[in-house]
């Protein structure tokens, strides 16, 4: 099976040159879970031949609802290893480098110079943010895919353009530990209250997310939709056939609409981002504790109201 036979149907769209560019492209994927694993497989099926995968984690039953290589017989195995096997079963000539252990940021940064595109897809968003920053410092373009419930953001992040922090409204902190700790705090997690109306989270699950630190809820169609869109953006970038949707523009996916937004151009997400940034700034001033108390009151009212609506609807 030669390359042209396997990817024959791609030549109906890409010229020989474009497909050759795709073939020679390489991608670093940090985290091979829902989005990372899927983007890897879609790109392998589109003809990309060089992959560097980083993942320390193994498949567990709760991954079954969305992760492409999670099956009854792969539960308990390392994700990067399983994805590597699948890629080689798709294209035996692909070069796949799998790192099956936890790497720190400087170790990951050392893997960057050899690839064309960096895809931080770690479960821990704070970890991904610092991978994005390293990619920017090394002048590498990165791919961002952020799904939650039925909502998702997708964008290509070239260096020196608005970063994922600007798109999602995260505070700019200097160390990973600080950011990771902040993202886990209750007051910060309230900044994601729009998950309920926009991403269709149920209020009780959200409460568990705030109070008991449950993992974000995910459903297969949205995760796969966002990942396929991310893989398409990567292909646009590799082939040069279409202009990718790159920062400051980004895709905004909900179950009703898919559209392109722009950082700091008025729309719903921009307002939410401004609100987050403003409230983060207030938390740093002496009104911080007062705002926190206000947030508690607001949360009690919000919970009751949403709960009432949920019950009323059913």
């Amino acid at each position: 099976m030669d390359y042209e036979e396997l990817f024959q149907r791609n030549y109906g769209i890409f010229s020989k040159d474009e497909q050759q560019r795709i073939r020679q492209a390489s991608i670093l994927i940090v985290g091979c879970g829902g989005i990372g694993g899927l983007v890897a497989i879609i790109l392998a099926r589109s003809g990309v031949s060089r992959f560097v995968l980083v993942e320390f984690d193994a498949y567990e039953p709760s991954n079954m609802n969305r992760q492409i290589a999670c099956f009854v017989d792969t539960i308990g195995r390392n994700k990067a290893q399983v994805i590597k096997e699948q890629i080689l079963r798709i294209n035996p000539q692909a070069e796949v480098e799998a790192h099956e252990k936890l790497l720190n940021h400087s170790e990951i940064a050392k893997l960057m110079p050899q690839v064309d595109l960096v895809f931080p897809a770690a479960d821990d968003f704070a970890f991904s943010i610092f991978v994005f920053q390293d990619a920017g410092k090394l002048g590498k373009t990165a791919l961002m895919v952020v799904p939650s419930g039925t909502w998702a953001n997708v964008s290509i992040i070239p260096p020196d353009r608005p970063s994922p922090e600007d798109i999602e409204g995260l505070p700019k902190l200097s160390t990973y530990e600080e950011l990771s700790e902040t993202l886990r705090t209750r007051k910060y997690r309230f900044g994601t209250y729009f998950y309920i109306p926009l991403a269709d989270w149920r209020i009780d699950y959200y409460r568990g997310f705030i109070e008991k630190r449950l993992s974000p809820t995910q459903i297969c169609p949205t995760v796969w939709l966002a990942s396929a869109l991310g893989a398409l953006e990567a292909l646009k970038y590799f082939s040069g056939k279409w202009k990718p949707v790159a920062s400051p523009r980004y895709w905004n996916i909900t179950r009703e609409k898919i559209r392109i937004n722009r950082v700091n151009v008025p729309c719903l997400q921009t307002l939410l981002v401004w609100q987050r940034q403003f409230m983060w700034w207030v938390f740093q001033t002496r009104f911080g504790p007062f705002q926190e108390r206000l947030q508690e009151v607001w949360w009690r009212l919000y919970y009751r109201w949403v709960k009432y609506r949920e019950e009323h609807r059913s």
Partner: protein
Amino acid sequence: MDLDYKSLFQRNYGIFTESEQERIRNTRVLIVGDTGTGEVISVILARSGVEQFIVSGKEAYIASDMNRQICCFSDTIGKSKVAQIRDTILSINPNCKVIAYDHLPSEKEMDQLVPEADIVIPAVDDLAYSVLLFRAARRHGKPAVLCLPSGSMGWVSVFKEKGPTIEDVLGIPKVDYEGMRLVMRSAIYQCAQYRLITAGDWRVQWFWEYFRGNRPLALLCPVEWMMDSLAALETLKIASGKWIPKEAPRCWYMKRGRVSASRFSRVVSYHRKLGWLFFGSRIGTPFHKLALWFWGKVFNYLEARQNR
């Protein structure tokens, strides 16, 4: 290890209530066809918690399926697609009940098969055949999901008992299967598919080879899987009853690698219907040559633009 339903699909419960998830679990979907579309949709549905499948298809994997079909690997080439997809569904959730048929149902068999399902998903390359399935679904009052990717273009929509039919929105003449096949084989119909080039980014050379029967449809993995995910999302909307699906004439539309919530174009459908009225009748026959000359010029222009 504990592999009961709740532990496999625990992340779904952040969105669906127990009764909604139970409804999804008990929904029976009928997926007809050998295309990558049907496979990806059935995998997504299995991963979302659907447990009852009827799948049907007759082909085996070939090398050129590798670029988009989810169960096509170097070690499954030559094996039956339906058997592979059944095994995959069962290795996601061993409690699934999958009924697999190794042939495509005839028009008569459709009338037996469709009433058994709750949702019909036609996934065949042959548009004329899928129109038959949409008609059968409508006859029996079952919702049917359209997922039609090609090149960098695609549509996803839901057709219910009421509302416009697939023939209305795509401008397909309302004739029987043989009649539709005849129409789709005519040169004048093929010229009217120019949007495969302008909106779907097909290469002009490939377009001609395809209509001469020498080439398959041009398809790209991310585009196809994105349309499949949207189709699966629409299926879940119907199955759970939580949201209103995107019913025709509303649809998800993708053009030149950009996707949006949209409507089927009335211009295109009326253009086709009028074209069929004129060119399909005796009055129009003498004008075929003129039209083909015109389209020849258009395609030459498009090809020159692509090679620039």
